[in-house]
């Protein structure tokens, strides 16, 4: 039998996964796309950060579409769903004995509990969605685990073929062509990538408990879509040829079929298995002719909606946009003093607001051309796990780049134009005169001054005569330094660099 519906669904899943991977690794606004269509991210971040993020409007399109057609997103688009289906496919191919594929139906209410917890925490200003949102989990995995590993594998296999097996010419050209596409380097690595991998693998490994266990029972985005899909117009219809063989009921990966003709629309993800696997070809999906009011609304759900409505009104009356940017002067110019801590991406000045808005999708780190943006573990406190920081010793903030703000889906990193970003302070450099070679009078070295990308040079050299030898000693011009970290990156002093960037003191630092 031809499986044309299932085939097109799988094709769509793979294409969207490719598109997703492609978009998040390019410094384009479209990198936000998949996160923008996730209404849960928009809702939670808006609640937690007390801001209105514009992507809410795009996500409304998907709210409406889901309300019309059901959870097509989960079945046809969601990259996490694709990974889960792929894992299930491999598991079924590998395991000899027939494994139990369908988890009990009553577990499916867990996801509503998770959803409610996420929303309530967001109302209180705590954003924990980043750990479990399927877009965040899969985006982060692709950005900081999959793509770096693939780059490393490609690089090493070429290296092996060229250096060990001795096929220099053809493979060298091929390698250089790839390197050109990758923009100069295939080697990227991320600190604490294990956190991302651990979360992703836990989600994937729920697949052992049954087909789409995560999507049926745990996914908070799935819960939101389930609430909407309950009223959707797309109906599964059977014609008279149905012989009640129960194949569809037993095989449904979402457990959405109670009987062959009774479907729980909130669980159906339109995977089309029941259409293509039908022994008598009697099932199809049709749109309902007219809007049918739901027969009964569960009173607890009505209570929940009431509660959510009231709380959100309360929150939204105290609406305030915390991140306000003044004119064209660049950000952080008024800040004085330095402190040890975290150097945030350019334009991030309000630390608590940043932690609430950042969904740890990994877009900024993936797009950072120097690999300098790295996830922190506990440096930023428990609420700041896996947020990005600039690690100048790995890579400095490139003067000609403002990509992190462009790809950030929630505006946690503001989108600054290149002109403003060049004036924006991330921190300030300080010379450690007890390590710096010319200050110690050991040897001449002007690497920090040479590398400083600021046009007027934020590092000045003062000439001093030490026992007949003239040494050029670097000093930082506090007015010009933007804290990009290029000096620290290039400083030849080891093990500790003689010039380091320290973050700016934030004005509202209290959590």
């Amino acid at each position, binding site marked *: 039998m031809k499986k044309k519906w299932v085939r097109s669904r799988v094709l769509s899943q793979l294409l969207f996964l490719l598109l997703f991977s492609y978009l998040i690794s390019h410094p384009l606004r479209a990198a936000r796309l998949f996160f923008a269509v996730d209404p849960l991210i928009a809702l939670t971040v808006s609640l937690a950060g007390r801001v209105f993020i514009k992507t809410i409007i795009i996500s409304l399109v998907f709210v409406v579409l889901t309300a019309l057609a059901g959870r097509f997103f989960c079945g046809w688009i969601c990259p996490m769903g694709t990974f889960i289906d792929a894992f299930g496919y491999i598991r079924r191919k590998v395991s000899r004995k027939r494994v139990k594929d369908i988890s009990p139906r009553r577990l499916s209410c867990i996801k509503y509990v998770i959803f409610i917890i996420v929303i309530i925490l967001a109302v209180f200003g705590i954003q924990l969605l980043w750990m479990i949102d399927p877009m965040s989990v899969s985006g982060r995995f692709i950005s900081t685990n999959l793509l770096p590993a693939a780059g490393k594998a490609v*690089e090493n296999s070429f*290296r092996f073929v*060229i*250096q060990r097996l001795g096929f220099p010419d053809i493979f*060298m050209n091929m*390698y*250089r062509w790839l*390197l*050109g596409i*990758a*923009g*100069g*380097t295939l*080697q990227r690595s991320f600190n604490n990538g294990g956190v991302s991998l651990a979360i992703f693998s836990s989600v994937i490994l729920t697949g052992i408990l049954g087909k789409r266990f995560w999507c049926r029972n745990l996914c908070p985005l799935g819960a939101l879509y389930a609430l909407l899909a309950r009223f959707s117009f797309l109906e599964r219809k059977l014609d008279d040829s149905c012989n009640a063989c129960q194949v569809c009921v037993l095989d449904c990966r979402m457990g959405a079929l109670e009987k062959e003709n009774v479907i729980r629309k909130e669980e159906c993800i339109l995977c089309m298995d029941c259409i293509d696997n039908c022994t008598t070809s009697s099932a199809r999906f049709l749109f309902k002719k007219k809007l049918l009011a739901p027969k009964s609304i569960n009173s607890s759900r009505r209570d929940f909606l009431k509660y959510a409505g009231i709380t959100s009104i309360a929150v939204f009356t105290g609406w305030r946009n915390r991140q306000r940017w003044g004119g064209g002067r660049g950000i952080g110019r008024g800040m004085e003093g330095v402190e040890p801590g975290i150097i945030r991406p350019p334009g991030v000045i309000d630390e608590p607001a940043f932690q609430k808005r950042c969904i740890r999708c990994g877009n900024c780190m993936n797009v950072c*051309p*120097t690999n300098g943006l790295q996830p922190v573990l506990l440096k930023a406190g428990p609420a700041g796990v896996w947020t990005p920081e600039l690690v100048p010793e790995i890579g400095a903030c*490139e*003067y*000609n*780049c403002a990509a992190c703000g462009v790809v950030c889906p929630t505006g946690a990193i503001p989108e600054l134009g290149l002109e403003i970003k060049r004036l924006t302070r991330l921190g300030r450099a300080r010379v450690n005169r007890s390590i710096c*070679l010319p200050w110690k009078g050991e*040897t*001449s*070295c*002007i*690497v920090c*001054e*040479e*590398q*400083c*990308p*600021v*046009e*007027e*040079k934020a590092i000045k*050299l003062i000439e001093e005569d030490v026992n007949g030898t003239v040494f*050029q000693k670097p000093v930082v011009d506090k007015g010009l330094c933007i804290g990009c970290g*290029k000096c620290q990156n*290039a*400083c*030849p002093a080891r093990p500790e660099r003689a010039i380091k960037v320290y973050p700016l003191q934030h004005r509202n630092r209290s959590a």
Partner: protein
Amino acid sequence: MRFTRREFIKAVSVMLVGLVAKKLSAAERSPVSGAVGSLLKKGAAAGEKKYELSIIKGTDHAAITRQAVSALGGMEKFVKKGDTVVVKPNMCGPHMPEMAATTNPEVVKEIVYMCYEAGAVKVKVFDKPFRHAGMTYKICGIARAAKEAGADVFFVDDWNYVNAKFEYDSPLEGWPIYKDAIEADCFINVPILKHHSYTGLTLSMKNLMGVMGGNRGNVHWDISTKLAHLTDYIKPKLIVMDATRVLMRNGPGGGNLEDVEIFNTVMASADPVLIDSEAARLVGVTPKKIGCIRVAGEMGLGKFNVSPDLVYRKQV
């Protein structure tokens, strides 16, 4: 589909004519054109004399580049038929050509053309920028210009190196040097003349740092000796110095148009010390005050000065 003999001959001859026409049109961009043209020009412009250094001024940067090389005896003197050539411009960071931090793309492009005209099979153009490589290649305009001329432009990876070996004691003993730079039959150094806070000026010897791997920050310790030894190790056959736009302050990155002065000059020589000295004099710096020139001259890598009749000067 089958060819008759006549059709085959027709097709081949059309292709040949096309190829020749393309070659000619490529050579026609410059007043002094093509393999034939440059042979003629060699006799006409430079007479029968052998010049050691040429300094050409003019606003057509491609033309003055060609004349500068022609005055030394033409590119055929340096590039033999079948050679693999490395053209090493200065691509230090993502700066627009107008900012004078990177070599003028027109100069690089013309040199690539001349290499092919002289019979090179492959011309490679690369550098290891100290800022982001992908952006640098794109913004400085050299990648595009060189590709248009048919060069192989690629990024430097961090493992394709060989360790330098010296017959004398050198601080660079064992230093990783990019393999393609060493294996090339002909290495043409195309630096830009600009200010540098440490060496005073960035000249041809400083430009060679682009083929070094390892911790390049450490090169700055005892940089004069290291640069001189590096020049001796690489042994560039020809140096074409771009002084069309010169960054006078805040080098090597720059970024302010006020710091750039227009000199409209291109120099060429096979002698690294001579061309660096002359470039220094051009911007009013005493050559021997620049460490690497002094050390290289004392090592015998070249002359600080030659008699004026060995210098070909021309205003176009």
